[in-house]
């Protein structure tokens, strides 16, 4: 079965997941993003790469930050951006996902940026577009269920490369709710593809997915042991609803054992960086002293995120 996000020449047709993407493509995206970081410094923050193209932000699940950064990225590339919050419009009128896609395709869309609560929804859209002969429309997965959030994974890689230069000798720990996290899955695939020798996941057993070690990571349940000598700490967001359903007893206990504090961070290397995909729950997964401290690179992540999304969009639909 051909990876549905690659075209016949092995190039990127869609960006649906990092799983299975060759490292050359990942590196090419990071390399393409580098000059885009400078665009933001200019007085006129625009490039004409997507002029005349229509980018539809299809958000079937609410999001402010991700949608905004995609919107900024598309606008800096001179695309026309249409934002659709579908959770509150069509589906409540009984329209199916593919009906919505067909309608928007008929409006001459060039790109769909899709967020959906169900794992695999962007694959369904990409396969449908292929079946309809609409191969000129590209799909970017902006987060599907627990499955993938590839642009987040890529912007995290950009951030790591920016601060650590190389992936070759790093130890990276991903901490928190790995079970429900599409961000963690994309991070794991990206880190391993780019050659990070040791990727760890840290969390209580209720938040670590079955057989996750088969993805190539080491599992730790003791946070201090897991953080020992790491170069990069990637914190995950803990959704409030996880306190229901018997996954965790309380936010306080979670913070005590799995929240990142300055004290626990001392187990890591002195030059370790701390990342978080946002939005942060201060006092639940991360202490403010760390979030605002010298190791944190959380705001640069957001800035790099725009450049990385510009890179992905221009590689898919530019030229």
């Amino acid at each position: 079965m051909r990876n549905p996000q690659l075209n016949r020449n092995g190039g990127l047709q869609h960006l649906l997941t990092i799983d299975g993407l060759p490292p050359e493509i990942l590196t090419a995206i990071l390399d393409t993003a580098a000059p885009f970081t400078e665009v933001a410094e200019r007085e006129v923050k625009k490039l004409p790469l997507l002029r005349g193209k229509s980018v539809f932000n299809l958000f079937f699940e609410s999001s402010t930050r991700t949608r905004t950064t995609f919107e900024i990225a598309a606008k800096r590339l001179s695309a026309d951006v249409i934002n659709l919050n579908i959770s509150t419009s069509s589906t409540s009128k009984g329209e199916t996902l593919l009906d919505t896609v067909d309608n928007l395709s008929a409006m001459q869309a060039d790109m769909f940026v899709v967020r959906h609560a169900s794992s695999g929804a962007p694959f369904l859209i990409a396969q449908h577009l292929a079946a309809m002969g609409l191969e000129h429309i590209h799909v970017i997965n902006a987060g599907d269920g627990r499955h993938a959030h590839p642009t987040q994974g890529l912007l995290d890689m950009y951030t790591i490369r920016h601060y650590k230069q190389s992936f070759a000798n790093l130890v990276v720990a991903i901490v928190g709710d790995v079970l429900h996290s599409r961000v963690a899955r994309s991070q794991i695939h990206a880190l391993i593809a780019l050659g990070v020798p040791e990727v760890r996941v840290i969390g209580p057993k209720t938040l670590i997915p079955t057989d996750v070690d088969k993805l190539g990571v080491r599992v730790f349940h003791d946070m201090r042991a897991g953080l020992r000598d790491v170069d990069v700490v990637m914190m995950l967001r803990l959704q409030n609803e996880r306190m229901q359903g018997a996954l965790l007893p309380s936010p306080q206990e979670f913070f005590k054992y799995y929240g990142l504090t300055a004290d626990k961070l001392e187990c890591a290397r002195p030059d370790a960086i701390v990342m978080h995909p946002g939005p942060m729950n201060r006092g639940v997964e991360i202490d403010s002293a760390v979030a605002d401290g010298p190791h944190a690179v959380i705001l640069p992540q957001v800035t790099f995120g725009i450049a990385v999304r510009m890179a992905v969009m221009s590689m898919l639909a530019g030229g």
Partner: protein
Amino acid sequence: MKIHIKNGRLIDPSGGIDAQADLFIAAGRIAAVGAAPDGFAANRVIDATGRVVCPGLVDLAARLREPGFEYKATLESEMAAAAAGGVTSLACPPDTDPPLDEPGLVEMLKHRARHPGFAHVYPVGALTLGLAGERLTEMAELHEAGCIAFGQAHAPVVDTLVLMRAMQYAATFDFPVWLQAQDPFLGRDGVAHDGEVATRLGLPGIPVSAETIALSTLLQLARDTGVRIHITRISSAAALEMIVAARASGIAATCDISINHLHLSDADIGYFNPHARFAPPLRDRRDCDALRRGLAGGAINALCSDHAPVDDDAKQAPFGEAAPGASGLELLLPLTLKWAGEMKLPLGQALARITSDAARVLGLAAGTLAVGAVADVCIFDLRGSFRVTRESLRSQGKNTPFLGRELPGRVCCTLIEGHVAFENEVSEKTHARLRG
């Protein structure tokens, strides 16, 4: 109507027969095997040269979607699919709308199905009203209306006291119960086997323990109540081991698996293929291998199609939102033959699982070519293969994970009670050409 089926390779697992022999049918029954009865003058001769003549298939689970889901399928469309698949007897699960929980519904279904050329339909009645797991149905009345067993389809009986009493009540009349083992809580949000594939794809998992814990409950209550129990659609190696161990301790439990679980594992979900969504879920490769061996050795009593026609809208959705199930009536024989070939099993042994062994689970004298038996016959061609396409399927449900696959075993002719219910015209022409 007297029919003479000549020159075929006759395989009748119930009689241990696999030989070149003619078959003679009169008055809807098998009149003779081998030599014609005295004075037999056939109205029709069917040339089965180069073909296999076997009992009509017995399918332990085929959803006809009536009443209530006629937009998914109708009795007419699914009966045509059954005949085209060589299936002459089928049990239908009670998960219709409304469920088969009162005698009038069962009588109506039996009445609608009583039609020349339609397979024999054996409804499985609902064990509890509305399949809600709270109150018992009128099992004795339902039995008189035609139910051959009682079950819950995919609906659990959460309250174990209700479950025990339902079993006790069924055992009072020696009615069998057919139940699926899935814990309602452990599998609650899950859509795929809890393992590496689900973790990679971010799909909520259903652990094997969801099956084994529920199975343990079913087996212990079956032992205590003495009810005859049939476990439907097992999915894991662990469940099979438990059933084998239960038998050794004296619990006469039988079980079946579906054609999907015989050939597929969670790896077949690929990139979120909604055709690979099933309840219970496809387990991993080791489970699939254990089921294949278990069916070969007879620890799994029967193979069924688990036919569940689903409309396209319900399948064209993200994996977790897609309706589970697939069409299967027309694939039961081909997928049995594929498995038999891969496992290098004698044809008679493989066919037993979809004829005589399945009939034994049903408690019926079907699935046999013995003299005097009802003349339900399937004639198929072992040579060549065919491609499964939406167009090739007569079922109204066009969804199966086997679309596009080349499979062996095209059915040439199906007889139900001595009437020709299906003839494959294409293959008749090819056959005529082959004969020159």
